[in-house]
């Protein structure tokens, strides 16, 4: 409780020094668990500072649409917006959002380096991470033991496939591998891109020419379609995070490779974790994502907004969630700060913490020779949502057998090529 109070008085000090009383902030958030919890935790912030908070909670896709059009046209509906790693660097570059600088108490170096890199443009932080995630393998230890298979960290894809085959028992309603298939750059696009990364494929070459017709993409997508159509549940082309979580909690899945955040929602006690499979490629096979908070450029309440973000993404916020009567250590946002992982109470409740931290640390969003763009499971350019959407639909068509992998990749390549040349890249 003591820490909780320190957090509030600290925040109060910041807020009072920058704004007059009775400020109102409108905050657009994604309707994920951690953000919903924030609405309750922040009641104390309002009580202490007098800053009134209006929450607009939206589903991920709707939020993106709303926030993009509002920010692009300078609509000014929101003082604080939830954005992700895809948006932060390009919106920062376009001058749509304000650069963020916080006091020494904030300890910006405590934020995980991968998160800072993914939310910055030219070394300046444009969005503060509220929680972060990577991806990892989650599998049923009891089924794996019964089948006599193991899954190691960074295992080979062939071993993972063999493990899925061994656990696959459709007559009893158990499917070896549950993976994302629903179209969307943040859905099947995110997962397939990590598989492709591990096969050494990249979205674009250094001239930003799409590379979807490369042999590496072909091998990766063929593997994905083969694995999922042989050992996946029927209707995989409709499954994304929430659908697979439902299947997994109905005990219908052997292994699942998805966001680390899933671990905190899994109800079966027999779950074991492993780092994503990889064929030894440095880009890795896990993704990197953060839901972060940013301030639209030219907001009249910019100072009060930054003060709130400083509080909501601070170490003290983590303590405030843990101390809140409705929540506790199991509900604190993770993946954003190194210090959280050092707290013994957190370690005691989060048995996935070590695997999550390792996965996040191994993912690098910065451009490299192999992948000359920012982003791991996406590309941080304004055209990517459109390209990734078209790609996702083609991949779902390949998965449901309506197209061959070659035809689907060729169609996705043609779509990406048209969009990139239309956008003036070449």
């Amino acid at each position, binding site marked *: 409780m003591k820490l909780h109070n320190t957090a509030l008085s600290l925040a109060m000090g910041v807020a009072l020094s920058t704004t007059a009383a009775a400020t109102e902030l409108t905050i657009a958030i994604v309707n994920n668990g951690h953000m919903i919890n924030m609405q309750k935790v922040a009641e104390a912030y309002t009580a202490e500072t007098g800053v009134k908070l209006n929450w607009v909670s939206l589903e991920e896709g709707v939020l993106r649409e709303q926030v993009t059009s509002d920010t692009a046209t300078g609509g000014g509906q929101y003082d604080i917006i939830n954005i992700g790693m895809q948006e932060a660097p390009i919106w920062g*570059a*376009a001058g749509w959002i304000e650069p963020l600088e916080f006091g020494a108490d904030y300890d910006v170096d405590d934020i995980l380096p991968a998160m800072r890199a993914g939310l910055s443009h030219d070394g300046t932080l444009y969005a503060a991470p509220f929680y972060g995630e990577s991806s990892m393998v989650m599998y049923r230890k009891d089924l794996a033991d019964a089948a006599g298979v193991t899954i190691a960290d960074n295992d080979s894809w062939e071993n993972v496939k063999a493990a899925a085959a061994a656990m696959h028992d459709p007559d009893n*309603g158990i499917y070896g591998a549950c993976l994302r298939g629903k*179209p969307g750059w943040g859905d099947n696009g995110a997962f397939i891109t990590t598989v492709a990364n591990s096969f050494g494929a990249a979205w674009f070459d250094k001239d930003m020419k799409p590379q979807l017709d490369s042999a590496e993409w072909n091998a990766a997508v063929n593997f994905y379609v083969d694995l999922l159509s042989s050992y996946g549940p029927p*209707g995989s082309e409709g499954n994304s995070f929430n659908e697979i979580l439902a299947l997994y909690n*109905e005990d219908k899945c052997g292994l699942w490779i998805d966001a680390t955040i899933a671990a905190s929602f899994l109800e079966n006690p027999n779950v074991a974790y492993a780092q994503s499979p990889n064929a030894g490629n440095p880009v890795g096979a896990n993704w990197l994502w953060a839901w972060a908070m940013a301030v639209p450029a030219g907001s009249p309440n910019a100072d009060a907004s930054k003060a709130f973000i400083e509080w909501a993404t601070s170490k003290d916020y983590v303590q405030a969630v843990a101390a809140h009567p409705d929540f506790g250590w199991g509900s604190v946002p993770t993946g954003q700060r190194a210090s959280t992982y050092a707290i013994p109470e957190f370690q005691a409740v989060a048995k996935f913490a070590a695997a999550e931290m390792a996965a996040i640390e191994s993912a690098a969003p910065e451009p490299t020779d192999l992948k000359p763009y920012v982003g791991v499971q996406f590309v941080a350019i*304004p055209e990517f949502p459109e390209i990734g959407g*078209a790609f996702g639909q083609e991949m779902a068509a390949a998965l*449901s057998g309506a197209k061959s992998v070659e035809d689907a990749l060729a169609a996705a390549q043609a779509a990406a090529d048209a969009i990139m040349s239309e*956008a003036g890249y070449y």
Partner: protein
Amino acid sequence: MSDRRLPRLLQTPAVILLLLWMLVPLSMTLYFSFIRYVLNSLRRPEWTQPSLSNWRGFGNYEYVLFKAKDFWLAVENSLFIVSSILVATVVLGLALAMLVNRTFPGRGIVRVLLISPFFVMPAVNAVLWINMILDPVLGLNGIAVGAINETVAGLRDFPVLGAFFSLWPVLEPISFRGTDTSAYAVIIMVTWQWTPFAVLIFMTSLQSEDEQQKEAAILDGANAWSRFRNLTLPHLARPIAIVVMIQSIFHLSLYAEIEIVSRGNGNKNLPYLIGEFTSNNIGAASATGIFAVILANIVAIFLLRMVGKNLMD
């Protein structure tokens, strides 16, 4: 002349307001469809402002028609989905309206239940159908297919019949989110939702049917089919035309069902395609919007002729 001038003068503000109401959005769409206009661009920041200096003529139209993905798929699907729903709702609506037009105990409750799907919101309708009924694992679809397979497997152990049942195949549940099936999922769920509308309209007009004429037909020895064919159907021509027209207007702009079933994989229509472009390329979205207006007008011309003819008779 002066006696007509005053009413016209008084109408003018309303007429001007209506004109603006229609013309401003349409002309903005038309304008955007002829210029380069994107929300964000790293290479060409000048394209992010709607300005005449970004004029590109028919470039956006050319891009949408010949270079971008799925324009013709969207047009075909728009027409396929709308016409399938129309046929299904009119046939089902007629059949149900004829059934509940008779008197039977509990008719009031049956009618209320029959109408209720129409009050479900489109997004709720789609979520319920795709997750609870059509899902191949956790939905009724998967559970039913599993139960049939289990029953057949059980019957195989019987001494004589077993040989017969062993010839039966093991059924696979259909995935309604697949590329080839997602359009049917949309048709099924929208038909479920809109059949009540057709029933409602047909039921009210059936009640105005001339009973004496029907009795005379019975006395003349006409059978049920010929009574339906020659008396009821002509009587219902006008309500059918109205159902077809109103539903076409609504179903050309379906969006929620497509988004929820498969995110445009195999079942997209023109509004959905516009939605995909609006993530960045406003010029292409506007050009597609103009195509959608043209398509809606073509459909409307046919429909107005049909309805007009019916109203004239």
